[in-house]
């Protein structure tokens, strides 16, 4: 078989080139350098020791570096070149919806009237942002089929927390003690974790052989002490939960509520609404479905939509539009007698709300539906192109993502991790791996609607080439990535002997 580098070049997406090394800030530091200057003091200098005990005061910030501005700029510019990013290429992380992040969103969020506003300034001075939040709530409600939406949660997981809290508040308010919650075995880790933070015991619901949850499995477990069900639709296999309505009826009929994990909402935009599928409360990941950038791990925003029955329990404050009688404008509304309280120190990750608003306005109803259609088209196209070369555990049409596995490479001893690392050599970020847990060696691919046909073809050719390599040159695949500055970092060592900070003299080894 051909030379491995040629195989990579044949696909035409990647090569290797000059890259830069860069030490830690602390290693580059030199006493006496500075990267910022302060305004000339226009007030008398004050010795803090005059008003405070000397031993309460900081005498030195040892451990902080000293660099000039050019050095700092170079440091982080070089660091940036070690990252993969959506703006560099396809980023098929399943469940993460790595779609294109419009530059318009960033320009909008940087407007001084948004970026420099203070959360506690009088509402009379904040009418612009309050109107934006009010309208965004209305838009998200319409998109999801919910009645009200809180914009406070800072990310999906905090949204889950808020949603489950409202379910708990709902039951408690009705004097019911329910201490269990049903969660499918395909669920994301934040679901059980969020339930546990509410003191709930989680009861796993097994997925059926078709990858879906079945009414019977839920009915069996839906006892009077169960507060409700957390469901992800489409689920983490990329499959639409076809029995959801029936399942929701079961849950409702036994006094439970249904929480919808909205991480995969991208597949349903303008096509179907969680609120019409029996879901009582759900979160949105604005950093997925609504194009706000992931930032290497946030910030995001995780608004939560609820049906009216949960509205009394919404976190405060909400934004309210004044009735004609009260005058014009928008105010913060604390009148939620049974509110679960406050989740965020302020109004939420407002900067992300501005971006998501810009996105909804840019797409409109047709554009949003087009997102769902093209996202689903792309996922099915990838599946169609790969299903002959990769094991497909649940081989049926998918929605926005498809899950493959490494089963077909068992013989060669090539694992999902190997495939993922080798994909890097071809110039792609790996898919989500080993999730969902119910698929051994899962490769979870979500192309999103941002990717073009040719782009997907090149990506599929890379995966097909790797499938071939797995058979013909398995050792090369197991040694991947070969192209990167660093290869296969030792995670075991990192965890066994944690080095979590730089120190003047870190212990050797």
């Amino acid at each position, binding site marked *: 078989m051909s030379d491995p580098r040629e195989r990579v070049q044949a696909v035409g997406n990647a090569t290797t080139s000059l890259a830069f090394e860069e030490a830690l800030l602390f290693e580059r530091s030199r006493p006496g350098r500075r*990267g*910022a200057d302060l305004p000339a003091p226009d*007030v008398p*200098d004050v010795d803090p020791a005059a008003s405070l005990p000397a031993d*309460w005061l*900081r005498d030195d910030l040892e451990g*902080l570096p*000293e660099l000039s501005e050019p050095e*700092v700029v170079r440091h982080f510019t070089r660091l940036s*070149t070690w990252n*993969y*990013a959506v703006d560099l290429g396809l980023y098929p992380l399943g469940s993460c919806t790595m779609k294109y992040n419009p530059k*318009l969103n960033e320009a*909008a969020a940087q407007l001084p009237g948004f*970026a420099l506003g203070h959360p506690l*300034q009088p509402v009379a001075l904040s009418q612009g*942002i309050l109107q934006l939040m009010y309208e965004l709530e209305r838009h998200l409600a319409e998109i999801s089929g919910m009645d009200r939406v809180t914009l406070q949660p800072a*990310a999906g*997981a905090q949204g*889950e927390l808020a949603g489950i809290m409202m379910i708990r508040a709902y039951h408690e308010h009705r004097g019911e003690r329910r201490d269990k919650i049903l969660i499918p075995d395909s669920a994301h*880790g*934040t679901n059980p*974790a*969020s339930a*546990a*933070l509410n003191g709930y015991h*989680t009861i796993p619901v097994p997925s059926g052989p078709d990858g879906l949850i079945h009414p019977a499995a839920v009915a069996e477990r839906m006892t009077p002490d169960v507060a409700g069900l957390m469901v992800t639709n489409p689920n983490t296999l990329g499959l639409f939960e076809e029995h959801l309505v029936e399942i929701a009826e079961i849950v409702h009929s036994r006094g439970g509520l249904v929480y919808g994990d909205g991480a995969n909402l991208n597949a349903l935009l*303008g096509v179907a609404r969680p609120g019409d599928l029996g879901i009582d409360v759900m979160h949105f990941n604005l950093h997925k479905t609504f*194009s706000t950038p992931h930032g*290497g791990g*946030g*910030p995001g*925003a995780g608004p939560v939509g609820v049906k009216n029955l949960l509205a009394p329990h919404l*976190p405060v404050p909400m934004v309210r539009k004044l009735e004609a009688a009260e005058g014009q404008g928008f105010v913060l509304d604390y009148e939620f007698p049974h509110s679960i309280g*406050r*989740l*965020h120190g*302020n109004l*939420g990750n*407002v900067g992300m709300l501005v971006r998501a608003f810009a996105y909804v306005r*840019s797409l*409109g109803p047709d*554009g949003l539906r087009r997102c769902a259609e*093209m996202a689903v*088209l792309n996922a099915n196209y990838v*599946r169609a192109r790969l299903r002959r070369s990769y094991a497909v555990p649940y081989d*049926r049409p998918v*929605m926005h993502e498809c899950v493959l596995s490494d089963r077909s490479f068992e013989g060669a001893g090539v694992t999902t991790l190997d495939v*993922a690392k080798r994909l890097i050599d071809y110039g792609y*970020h790996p898919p989500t791996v080993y999730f969902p847990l119910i698929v051994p060696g899962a490769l979870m691919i979500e192309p999103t609607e941002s990717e073009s046909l040719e782009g997907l073809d090149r990506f599929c050719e890379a995966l097909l080439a790797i499938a071939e390599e797995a058979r013909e040159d398995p050792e090369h695949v197991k*040694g991947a*990535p070969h192209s990167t500055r*660093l290869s*296969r*970092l030792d995670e075991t*060592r*990192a965890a066994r002997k944690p*080095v*979590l*900070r730089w120190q003047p003299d870190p212990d050797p080894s």
Partner: protein
Amino acid sequence: MRFIPHTDEDVATMLEAIGAPSLEALFACVPEKLRLDRPLALPAAASEQEVLAELRALAERNAHAGSHAWFLGAGTYAHFVPSAIDALASRAEFATSYTPYQPEVSQGTLQAIFEWQSMMCALTGLEVSNASLYDGASATAEAALMAMRLTRRSKVVLSGGVHPHTREVLRTYLDGLGGEISTAPRGADGRTAGLVGCVDDATACVILQQPAFLGAIEDVAAAARAARAHGAVLVVTTSEALSLAFLRSPGALGADIACGEAQSFGVPMSFGGPHLGFLAARGAHVRQMPGRLVGQTVDARGRRGFVLTLSTREQHIRRERATSNICTNQGLCLLRATIYLALLGRRGLRELARLNHAKAEYAKSLVRRTPGLALPLAAPTFHEFVVGVPGPAEAALARALDAGLVAGLDLAPHAPELGPALLVCTTELARREDIDRLVRVLAGRSA
């Protein structure tokens, strides 16, 4: 649709490859009757030009730290942000990448987080710092939960000096796990009083905010003794991370956990978010920490590199037994703060803190000398303090606004017992002449 590349021809080709007759057919798994049979009732798509115009119009209806002289703090602070931060943090490689699960293509983010962790350890005087939490309020709540896990106790002693919003969030978080909260009142000088009395052997932790919401600098060492006496954990939280460069570190004064809000480190106020929660703790407690951690390791060829580590604490591995449910955190804000600390550096950050303090002391000295104004709380402060004003605080705020000043926070809802009063903050952005004007208008004299 400029964000979506598909042409009709592309769609046809792809449908064919899939073997689906139509786009509609791709949604066959969605039962007919559940499909939305109408377009979403949303405003029609607008062009980039129109959307920007619409958003500019909205933005212009907000006051902001650029449009007024700014003295409002109360947990969110108007500091100068060096231009290099926007230039670097906006680089696509940082902004459009995901959580660094794949270290070979994420070393940029990973090394920056490791640098952040290291600097926060230095600032807090503790051995481990995580890679951010949502904000100062949730970080404080996570600290309480962490303390409950560490001590297997459920009682939380909360200083009345903790930011009211943080207290609310703490209640919200603890409610589900049966944590009970008792609050230590504020003493006459503004500091927390009678902590000792509140702590007992059932106390999981004592939570002290430094400086207190009303500005007073607390006695951390005393709180540490009170906590230690009963085997409780001392959590010191702050809503102004810059104070860490002014005051002896919480770790050095006996805190077991330091947490709070680091928005002041180069993160725009942005109406309250996204900001930057942080949490640092003693090394021994690392396995009970919430949030991501980056650790140093080596690659296959022995070269230094960084990875997410100790993930067995986290939801994606430990699920319902995770130390927290957090997944997406505040990565890009952390990056901004890391750049900020790198620019300000060992000397610059301390000088900045001192300048903030000097501005406040100057303002206080004027207030002291101004009839009609008062400093009701005697405790020393950093850059924020309470000013008693003649007549209703609202009226004082309105007078200031007419003079182009956002004068501070009306304390009526928070500390009515102080009478008409404002919480006033002076950062490096407050120019002497603005401070002079502020004092004049608050006293009711013409600007």
